[in-house]
Every structure is written in structure tokens, then in C-alpha cells.
């Protein structure tokens, strides 16, 4: 099989070791970094399709997302200029006090594989830091993740801080995480809620008017 087929399959199977090896070999063979990312993206998109039709479970998707992240980490720095990310820009992080990153990492992988430029602020991000980065990077979407009922209450603080800084109408805010509901997202004034990573992609596409 060609590296193109091998890479997509390795991502699909969540095999990060093979993924890194194949991507490295492709780079040595002078493959275009953008093509490498695209082949990896096909693996994670297929993982999402299998999950939505019930043939894949969440752990399968997580391992596929992690494998794709390994490719991104190695290949994205080699892209010239903006490279990937033509669809739009997203700033994302887990709110203060929340050290969980799995759900957020899946969203990041799905968005990047779908053509979004994503800046990942990581976990345990203070409201003031979200605001500072929104001010600096001017993303179209701000994604907030919370994975515990004890930390989701930090989300309104971020919304308030954006309002105070005069940035609320300059960025669309998406929220997500296991304890959240659409009703809760609406109650804190978020623009969108993603029930899972693929739903988050669909909502962001809709918010930005992207097909």
C-alpha cells in the first residue's frame, strides 16, 4: 500500500506509533506536508463516520484523534504561511480548575482536520487569559470546555469577562463538555453548544456560514 493509504488507516486505527513513522517516511520522500495532513484528516473523518453509525466507540475516536494530533504536531510547523486553516479561526481551552483535555483534544483534532485554524490554550485556563488571547488573536470562535459540574460554573465568568472587555460581540462562543446541556449553554448566553466533537464542528460551520 502507499503511504497515503497507510497513514489514513493508521489514524483510523488510532495507531500513533505507525502514524508518526509513516508521516516521517512521507516527509523524507518529499511529500507535501499539506497532503500528509489531508491524508491523516481522512482517517479521523472516517472515524467520525463510523462512530456516528455506531460501528466505532468513543475510545476508538479518542485514539484516532490522538494519532492525528501526533501528525499535526510534527507536520503543521512545516507548512508555509497559513497552510491549513482556511475555513476559519478557533481559540479553545478548558476553563479554570479543569484539567481534563480529552474532549477538547478531540474537538481540536476534528476542527483541524476539517480545515480550521485552531489555537489550543490547553487546560485550566483563567477567564482573564481567554480574554487576553481573544483580544490578541481575534478568533472567530472561542471554544470553552468543562468536564465537571464543579468547573462548568467558570463558563459564565468567561462570558462576563468578555462582556466587560467589550469583546462579547466580536467572537462567537461555543461551549461543550460532559455535564453541559443545550439549555445550560443558552442560559449563560453562549452562541452554540456541541453535544460531541462532530456536533461542535457542525455548529461552528453553521455559526460561520461554512458549508
Amino acid at each position: 500500500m502507499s503511504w497515503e493509504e497507510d497513514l489514513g488507516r493508521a489514524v483510523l486505527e488510532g495507531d500513533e506509533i505507525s502514524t508518526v513513522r509513516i508521516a516521517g517516511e512521507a516527509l523524507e520522500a518529499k511529500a507535501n506536508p499539506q497532503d500528509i495532513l489531508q491524508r491523516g484528516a481522512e482517517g479521523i473523518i472516517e472515524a467520525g463516520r463510523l462512530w456516528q453509525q455506531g460501528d466505532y466507540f468513543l475510545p476508538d475516536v479518542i485514539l484516532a484523534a490522538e494519532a492525528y494530533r501526533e501528525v499535526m504536531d510534527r507536520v503543521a510547523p512545516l507548512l508555509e504561511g497559513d497552510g491549513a486553516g482556511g475555513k476559519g479561526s478557533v481559540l479553545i481551552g478548558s476553563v479554570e480548575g479543569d484539567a481534563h483535555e480529552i474532549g477538547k483534544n478531540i474537538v481540536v483534532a476534528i476542527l483541524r482536520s476539517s480545515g480550521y485554524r485552531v489555537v489550543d490554550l490547553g487546560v485550566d485556563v483563567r477567564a482573564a487569559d481567554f480574554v487576553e488571547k481573544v483580544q490578541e488573536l481575534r478568533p472567530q470562535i472561542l471554544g470553552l470546555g468543562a468536564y465537571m459540574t464543579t468547573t462548568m460554573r467558570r463558563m459564565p465568568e468567561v462570558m462576563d469577562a468578555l462582556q466587560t472587555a467589550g469583546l462579547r460581540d466580536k467572537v462567537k462562543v461555543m461551549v461543550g463538555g460532559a455535564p453541559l446541556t443545550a439549555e445550560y449553554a443558552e442560559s449563560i448566553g453562549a452562541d452554540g453548544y456541541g453535544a460531541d466533537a462532530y456536533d461542535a464542528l457542525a455548529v461552528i460551520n453553521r455559526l460561520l456560514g461554512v458549508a
Partner: protein
Amino acid sequence: MNLKPMLNVMKKLQKGVLYSKGLRLGRLDGYERLIAGIYGQPDRVPLICQPYTYAMGLHSLPSRKFFSESLPFVHASANMARYLDIDSWNPIFDFYNIELEALGQPLIWREGSEPDVDSQHPLIASEADFGRLKPPAPGRDGRMPFVLESYKRYMDVTGLQPMVYACAPFTMAVLIRGYVNFLRDMRRNPAFAHKLLDFLSMEVVVPWIAKMVQVTGPSIVVMSDAWASPPNATLEMVAEFCIPYVHKIIKATNSPIRTVFDTGVWGERAADPRAVLDMKMDMMVPGNDFKALRPFFLLVWSEDYDAVGIPLVRDYADEKKVCLLLNIYPPALEEGPPEKIAELIKRLIREGAGRGRFGLLANLIPIGTPVEHAHAVIAAIKQFGSYPVDPEKLDGMAFRMPAVEPFDDWYRREGLRI
């Protein structure tokens, strides 16, 4: 061992069980109401509460002090339970962390919150790290002394035995290894995953349970296992990597007068609901040789019962003759107002209370929640939850919010000093 709490519990158990079967020997106190609610029909729906960080916030205690020193921890929790008139409470510490911290896993401490495992730095980052792992000295390492002292103090304050908490091995493995790493172990290196789980079960959890019940007597032992839940874990993973170790621990620690079980699992909304409920039962039913003490309850979380419907889980609980315990969605308590909270409680009672074998759990009242919101929970249960519950009549009943005394005023007059 102090025998008085054990004898008290036996007396209350007897009274509660008899009440639930129709033999009513006087009014029930909160603990007896809970027992009656577990085995049948009490006078009204019981409310269990985990004081946790809400008690810490009410007393303006620093996080490290609350979760490390038994006196402020137990007295603050007891004060909160008395102030709110909760039926039953337990000393709830950050029970996922105790064994892990004793093993050497770093925690992150923050004000206004419980400590959390530093998931960026799992203790067993590689298989080689496992070889360096030493079992903790039960009761000596980490904050284990704090836990034991807290149980003793709880027995002094309440005259009752506490429920004893441990972290279940599957969840401990996820936390100590990192979720993605452990997923890879289960898939690519199952022998290592089993070796780790066996170590955590037999070298960590079993000795720790033995040490705790030396202090408390033949208590109920609860292993919490939030990570063994769909969709984070598939049912096949739970069957291979979780259940066998739960059963192994139960076999090693239970006795005719002690019940040991695994709970905290969620995920009915993410898989076949009945399969998840069956799995939960499998984590409880083998927990005791004395059939009357098992299973203790079937706990279903708000995100799940809202998705699959309370009637489904109520019917399942009836079919299995087990008490259904529903938690109260924590953000609803924080958001209020009291009337909306009362409507939520009314709905849970209308759909869940049935003819008994039912309870409500305030597993978390978010820190900073107005005290009126917390009082509204118990007021609504008292107004709407008296048995026999008539769902049709409930709809016509209006909620009356009682006057609420500020906590500081109550504390100055009645509170246990910290």
C-alpha cells in the same frame, strides 16, 4: 473499635426496615428514613447530601485545610447537614485521590475546589514506572490519616458509622496512567493493564478497605468508579477490565455484616440503557453474603435520566427490587430560583417516588449557591414527598418557600466550632 456507632446503626436499621414493611414504631429520624426508603416506603422521600465543598464555602475554609484536617472537615460538614436539615450525610472527601496520593501521584490544589489529580503528570507515564511503584502503607501515607481521623470524628459527632469510600481500581488505573495511555494499554498491552489492575486491587484497595473498617466497624464500603462508564469505556472494556476486579475486591473484603459495592458509574444515555443498568447491578449484587443488605441502591445521574426518562429507570428498579437513587442536577441548585428548584424536585418525586424504594441525592451543591436555594430542596421534598405520593395531586400543589435564617446567624447559635 467503638461499638456504640455500630449498635446505633443496627437499631436504626431494624426500625427503618420494619417501618418500610408497615410496622411503624414511632417517628423516623433522617437515617431511619433513608433505611426505610432503601427497603420500602418511608414517611417521605429521603434526601442524602454530600456536604463537600459547599460546607467548605459556608465556613470560608481554605481548600487545603478542609480536605486535610479532620476537625474543620467533619464539623463544617455536620454544621451544613444540620443547618439544611438533611436526612443523611457522610464525610465526603475527594475519594478518588486518597490512594493515588498515597502512591505518590501529584495533585493540584486550588482555592474553592477539591484537589484534583494532575492529569498532565500521571504517576505511571510508562510501563517502566510501574516497576518502581510501592504499595502505600495503609493509614500512614498521604492523607490516609486524615481519612481515618475523619471517620472517628464523624462517629463521635453523629453516633453513627460512616459509609467508607475507596477509589475503584479501574478508575484508579485511568487516573494514575492517564486515560489515553490506559486505553492504549487495554487495546495493545492487555497483560500490562491486568497486572496494573491486579496490583491496584489487591495491594492498594483491599488493604486500605481493611484498615478503614478496622476503625469504623462493619460499615458499608463504597468504591467509586466514574471512569468505568460509557461512552468513556465500552461495556466490553468494563466487562474485561473492571467487573472482575470489583468482584475480586468484594470477595476479599466483604463479610456477612458488611456490604461492599462499586458505584458512580453513569452512561445510560450513551449505550443500551438496560445494559448499563445491568452492569451497575453486577457491581453491587455480589457485595454481601447477607441478602437483606444487598443491593444497596441503584444510582442514576441527571444527565442520564433526563435522556432516557425516569420511568425507564423506575421500572428497572422495581423489576430488580432495588432502591432508585436520583441525583439533583447541581447547576439547577446554583441557578435557582427556589420556585424552579421546587418544580424540579416535584418532577423527580412525581416520576420517581413510586411506592417507595426511592431517594434523592444532592451529590454536589456548588460552592457559593445561595442558602435559599439549598433550603428550597429540602422544603420541596417535605411539601411534595410525603407518602403515599399521588402524582395527579402533586400538579395542583403550590410551593411555599419557608423563611431562611442566614447561615452565620445559625452558626453563632448552634454550630459546632471550628
